[in-house]
């Protein structure tokens, strides 16, 4: 395996537990923008509430009884593990069932799964976070970590783009992030009448600043086409392939590298990813329909 990122797995008491969800209840339901909400889950088992932890970039399989499971990135803060946050976009049966959840409803949780953003190994570096649309939630725990350890990192820039101003997530937090000395650059593909910000795709934001390739790491998440061009711009500016980290998504079913669905080349995105150094993905990423 060429990925150097360590996995963080739950210590299941028995292998059987890895297939059956743990039950949690909805502690809070926070609508974000149209078709997207953040649900906050609290485990019913007090022991699990105490022991559950995750790393930034990991995901849970959320089980809606009767509907099925959906893989959702964890977007909450590691400092408050009492409630685990998941920002969900409504796209299919399971996520639409999530949209109808009420406080106290039961949701099954399996996880956390996958590799994480190696933010702890990047102390001292300048960090570029490039996110598009629903790609921002998986990076939010990284932002929180940086803010709580700000002195350990160099220049930190968040490049964030969405289709239109109405599609931007977490906008009330941008000011707080800016105050923590994170340069938040926001752009939209198409503007409306009120928008005074930048217009253009997020990868073009690279043209607006200079980076020191020797000391920069890039972490990016969003539609794959966006990732492709963010990587293109980072490579054009000589950021090394193994310091560009991407988070990919494929049809996830088991979360355990067993069912085969999420494979890209030799990698199971649920277990060898979702976070990869681009150096590992490079031979396969640009092969069409692979």
């Amino acid at each position, binding site marked *: 395996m060429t990925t150097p990122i360590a996995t963080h*797995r739950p210590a299941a008491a*028995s292998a059987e537990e890895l297939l059956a969800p743990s039950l949690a209840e909805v502690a809070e339901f926070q609508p974000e923008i149209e078709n997207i909400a953040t649900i906050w889950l609290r485990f019913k088992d007090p022991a699990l509430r105490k022991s559950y932890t995750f790393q930034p970039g990991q995901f849970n399989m959320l089980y809606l009884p009767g509907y099925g499971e959906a893989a959702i990135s964890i977007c909450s803060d590691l400092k408050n593990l009492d409630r685990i946050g998941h920002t969900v976009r409504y796209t299919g049966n399971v996520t639409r069932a999530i949209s109808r959840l009420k406080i106290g409803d039961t949701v099954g949780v399996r996880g956390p799964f996958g590799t994480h953003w190696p933010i702890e190994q990047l102390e001292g570096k300048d960090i570029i976070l490039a996110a598009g649309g629903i790609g921002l939630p998986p990076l939010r725990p990284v932002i929180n970590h940086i803010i709580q350890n700000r002195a350990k990192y160099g220049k930190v820039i968040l490049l964030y783009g969405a289709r239109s101003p109405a599609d931007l997530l977490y906008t009330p937090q941008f000011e707080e992030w800016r105050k923590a000395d994170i340069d938040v650059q926001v752009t939209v593909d198409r503007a409306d009448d009120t928008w005074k910000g930048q217009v253009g795709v997020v990868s073009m934001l690279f043209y607006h600043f200079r980076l020191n390739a020797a000391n920069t790491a890039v972490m990016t998440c969003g539609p794959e086409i966006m990732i492709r061009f963010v990587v293109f711009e980072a490579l054009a500016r000589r950021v090394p392939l193994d310091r560009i980290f991407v988070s990919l998504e494929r*049809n996830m079913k088991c979360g355990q590298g067993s*069912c*085969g*669905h999420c494979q890209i080349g030799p990698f199971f995105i649920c277990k060898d990813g979702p976070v990869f150094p681009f150096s590992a993905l490079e031979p396969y990423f640009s092969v069409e329909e*692979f």
Partner: protein
Amino acid sequence: MAEMQLHVGSTAALPKAQFDTILARLREKGWQTVGPQIRDDAVVYAPVTTLADMPQGFTSEENTGQYRVVKSGNARYFDITPGAQSWKQFFFPPRLSLFTARKNGDWKMRNVSEPSPRIAMIGVRPCEIAAINVQDLAFLREDFTDPVYRNRRKNAFIVAVNCLHPGGTCFCDSMGTGPKAAGNFDLALTELDDVFILEVGSESGKDILSGLTLQPADASLLQKAEQGLAAAREKMGRRMDIRDLPDLILKNLDHPEWAAVAKRCMSCASCTLVCPTCFCWDTQDHTSLSGNETERERVWDSCFNPGYSYQAGGNTRPNTRSRYRQWLSHKLGTWKEQYGVLGCVGCGRCITWCPVKIDITEEIAALRKEARS
């Protein structure tokens, strides 16, 4: 004559009449004995009680998209080669209930745990043992072990049968998986006309034989077996040069052959169903009309199914070309990096059971033409 002292690695001569004793002992100890039988003109794996249940006097003929069971003209039991079914159905059942849940005010879950069956597999071919070993790597891992597979696998007893009469689509010799079983069995048999040569493969295998009066296999018998196996290596129905795998595939992901084979492939998934190493699965939720009761099942899946790679935002493999390439580039390509071995064991089932006669040995040869290295 003195009773032979058996240990792991011993070979003995087993008179055919004594075979049933072994089956009876297995059943006494709680194993279900399952072996090849002929049903509806094909070899299937079904419960067997005596040697007489095995397909005596039959052999099978295979070619691309062709399969026939025909009379062999002799009295041997194991001249047939495997049919469409493989042994994976016993460790990795096609349908499996994971849990049920019921809502009575609040949702309560119930894990479905049944005692694991104990299957004694009679007549497992060397390629099939290799396939079991390949699936072991996928299901029994340090970071995740499938509990159902683990329990059934632990409980299994394997009686292997070496192949002196390979089938028309067999290429175990090319893959290094046969025609002789190298290990990972409890007992192994090589069938000669009048007698089985019996090899003890494990302590369990030795235990089953205790008290049986067995003669060691003499040199002439062993030589006959070796000659038969050497002849079998020459008689393979197919060959595949694997020296340049997996690189041949991984460096030629844009080869024109992918488009060519896609014109023929129907994406019917037959190859993945009959393949003894394919392990992909899906989950299905079956919910009552009231919405208050639900069951989650695990079922076999195939990378050829359109839904396999579907996700919100579209299908990453939206056509047959990309799906066929996924299958072959996994089986004979990326599988090596994932598990340390190639995923193909040379059993030939995918060639036999492809309705449009796609032959992976030909596909590999076709990729070699105008290949990039």
